[in-house]
């Protein structure tokens, strides 16, 4: 049972943006987070603005900057779309959200705007420096997706704004990425810790670009830039990788009291999963999982 709420369904984006100007409006897309939060009375909107019908926020298409993914794109559709195929870490991450039924209901924009520190679609998007396109009555603004994430449950949306799309910049030829997460059960579960790794010219001196994004170990999903800096342009050795992980650990500070994993385990798994992802990208044999 959800609390009483005014329900409004705008016909187009303009109408929606006007409704979003109202105090206490909350956008409803797939509802897999919003409805759950309302049921638990963690979210008590004055009005639910049902944006599911907005064509302006749908579709996946090629744009000059890369691939444009509408915020209302269903997670499973985004995972299966040929245009996202090369963004391995993104499709592996998004493909691990909930279960198939949830992924046919939940939207990419919803997974982002829910602002969960463990959102599975985000690490893969951040690796590719994805952008967030935000619409309001005044027009559109585009920000880096990483800066769009402000804290647990908080994103950079002001009153009257909606996330319209994310743009994945073109993936470079020969680049590869990988997503790994740890969960308490193999069946449906939230990530206890997640790691996405991107590599381009892996370990080639002067050219190597290794990027790492982490989930569920910081207030938001974020890039591990201190570790990336250690690796950038360097020949990859086991020692260097450990050094890089030591460096990124400075920013890894999982909260205590989580029911999913202790900070100690999460930190261990960050190291293990980064190494596993790199080994996988290198084509090395990794352990069974």
């Amino acid at each position, binding site marked *: 049972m959800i609390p009483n709420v005014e329900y409004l369904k705008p016909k187009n984006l303009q109408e929606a943006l006007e409704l979003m100007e109202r105090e206490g409006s909350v956008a409803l897309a797939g509802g897999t987070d919003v409805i759950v939060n309302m049921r638990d009375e963690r979210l008590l909107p004055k009005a639910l603005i049902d944006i599911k019908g907005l064509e302006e926020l749908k579709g996946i298409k090629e744009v000059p900057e890369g691939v444009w993914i509408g915020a209302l794109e269903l997670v499973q559709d985004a995972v299966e779309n040929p245009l996202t195929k090369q963004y391995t870490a993104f499709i592996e991450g998004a493909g691990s959200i909930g279960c198939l039924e949830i992924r046919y209901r939940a939207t990419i924009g919803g997974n982002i705007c829910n602002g969960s520190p463990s959102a599975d679609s985000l690490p893969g998007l951040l690796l590719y420096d994805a952008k967030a396109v935000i619409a309001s009555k005044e027009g559109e603004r585009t920000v880096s997706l990483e800066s769009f994430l402000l804290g647990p449950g908080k994103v950079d949306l002001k009153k009257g704004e909606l996330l319209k799309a994310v743009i994945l910049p073109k993936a470079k030829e020969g680049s590869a990425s990988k997503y790994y997460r740890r969960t308490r059960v193999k*069946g449906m579960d939230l990530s206890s810790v997640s790691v996405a790794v991107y590599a381009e010219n892996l370990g080639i001196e002067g050219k190597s670009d290794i990027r790492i994004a982490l989930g569920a170990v910081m207030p938001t999903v974020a890039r591990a830039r201190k570790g990336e800096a250690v690796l950038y342009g360097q020949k990859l050795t086991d020692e260097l990788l450990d050094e890089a992980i030591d460096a990124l650990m400075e920013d890894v500070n999982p909260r205590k009291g989580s029911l999913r994993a202790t900070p100690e385990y999460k930190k261990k798994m960050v190291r293990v999963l980064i190494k596993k992802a790199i080994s996988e990208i290198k084509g090395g044999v990794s352990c069974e999982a």
Partner: protein
Amino acid sequence: MTLKHVGKSYTRNDGVEKTTGSAKYVADMKFPGMLHAKVLRSPYAHAIIKSIDTTEALKLPGVFVVLTGKDVPGPFGVAVADQYPLAKYKVRYAGEPVAAVVAVNERVAKEALKHIKVEYEPLPFVIHPKDAVADGAPILHEDLMNYNVAPYVYPQGKNIYQHFKVRKGDIEEGFEKADLVVEGETWYPYIHHVQLEPHCAVAQYNLDGTMTMYSTTQAPFVVQNCINMLHDIPLSKIQVIVPYIGGGFGGKSDVTIEPLVSCLAKAVPGRFVRLLLTREEMFIGTNLGRGAYCKYKIGLSKEGKILAMQGESYLGSGGNVDYAVNIVTGMGLAGTGPYEVPNLKLDVYGVYTNTPPIGALRGYGHPEVHFPVERLLEKAARKLGMDPVEFRLKNLLAEGKVNGIGQVVKHDTGNVVLCAEKVAKELYKSPKPNKGDNILVGRGMAAYMKTPCMPTNVQSSVFLKLNADGSVTLATGAIEMGQGTYTVLAQMTAEALDIPYEKVNVTNTVDTLISPYEWQTVASHTTWGTGNAIILAAENLKAKLKESAAKVFNTDAENIKIEGDKVVYNDKVLTWGDLALGYKNPDGSALTEPIMGEGHFVAKGVQNPDPETGQGNAAADWTQGCIGIELGIDKTTGEVHLYRLINYIDAGTIVNPQMARDQVLGAITMVISSALTETLVFSEDTGKIRNNNLVDYKIVGIEDMPEEILIDFVQTPEESGPYGAKGIGEHGTVGTAPAILNAIYDATGIDFYELPVTAEKIMMALEGGE
């Protein structure tokens, strides 16, 4: 005897209804003018209720009544009268009902809860049974020694409400002779059943003084009794109706929400009142399971014979314990596992704790005590340098041996030795697989036995109504809750009457006004008890057919033969249908009466165990088996991968192999889950359950299941069972946890004694070199 229907994997007779969504459950029931209830629950695990003010809640439009402890009868309880439908004076667990609102709809009722003001004085609380028996522990029931208790309950004072003893041989001498003594403590945490269907009850107190209640209970006749005790309504005027229920696993046995709902209905005479729990309330406001702390010591000879066993077990039982009393008994009866122990001393204590009440949960005391026994025996085998299989075979309860309560194992008790041999042969048939450098592969096994913990005179009755077309309707008080019991009962009916399976229909609603009596659908005893009643009813029906035919043919009943659906006398033939509603003479006058078979079964010869020694014929039967597990541990993450599961079980004759296999696997799956992931987490500050939802109370999914599963049967017919059958529903739970932990030990050398063994715990232990 060749069997036509027993032993065949018939398709479930409730399958179409359930897969098409047309099957009705209590939450589907809607009645004109139905009101809705919501419950205000204690936020404290232990507190004195200083005051409750319901004034503001009552002012809310749409609110009919608000009840608190002062408005309800009690205390009640079959074994220990220690509970009230709503808390009086104090609360003993976070989630205990403190007040309840009846309103025009759920929304108003929920809103009204916010307007009830309760002042509490929090008290120190205790969650773990070990802490509850420690000196200085907070006392939950100060007046325990003055409570009304059943004759087999022996309250000890402080928080101990029951002490069950098993004594056999000379324990001191046994340990003196031992060459090796192994000791250990185990903890099986508090867990929940996680039934798919939430608890729901809809009740009406009629203006003529009768009560009708629809409920998701496994125990309609127990609920009927409870309403009788609480409200002094004659049993004949209490109608408890149960349609299909969506999973019970013991968590809907005895009573849960029904006493409260009966009080709410009584407060608004003439109106139906419905209480439907949320998922979160199921965790904090119904029965939990397990919560067993065991301390065991086993003495062995160097040849690997068990010489002595001493066990001290404590069952954390919650703020009120009524139905945990018999789990304590189960922990005693099965406290040796399926092994012969000549010198035995077991003490099982039932202990109050500030948790929701602990009740039945598939296994009923047996997984709790098999855990220490099987872990320690594994350890002993290794210490003696013996092969764990050979070691087990030496000590298992083979025919002629004597179990812990003095019963001599007979042929029909079952062949646990053969089960173990078959599992071992399959489990160790080839060398351990190589799963790569990061994976440690291990194998483990555990043997098990379980008895239904039932009243000594447990009863099952059925009616077999013969219809005019020759079809038969089986009326039973047993509940179909997903376990497939109606299919199995129909198969046995077809067998007993020698008619096609399709001709048998089973009533799919139990109604205490009209259904024949059935103790309750628990203890894996329906196939056994109700099956026995069916055989008696079939004989009764056939006798009546013969008597009727004899009148028609003007001869004696003994001259009549029944051949298929025909009744034959020399060359004269009648169909069953001709006689079903009574035979008419050519002139239209009635000659014979309508035919219904009646069968009434009661267990005979089952005794209460001796209060000082636990000895006696206290177990009606035993189902036994053995489980083997092969798994891999990822040493980089601690993750467990289950590769192979092998289980052989001797549950006597198997009525429906496909469903029996599914029952065993379902039971095993529940314990794969509690071995590896499940546990309720209690807040250290408030004692509240922190993970009362399926986001953070994790149960395994299909992805977690073993890659290969072999479940098979050893079928030694049980003399007391219909066609040699006995229980099978719960037994898969009994040995699974120690088998998995023995395999983890084999893989890693790490001995775990507490559940769940999560990836994180394994990882930390691997690194810590524990």
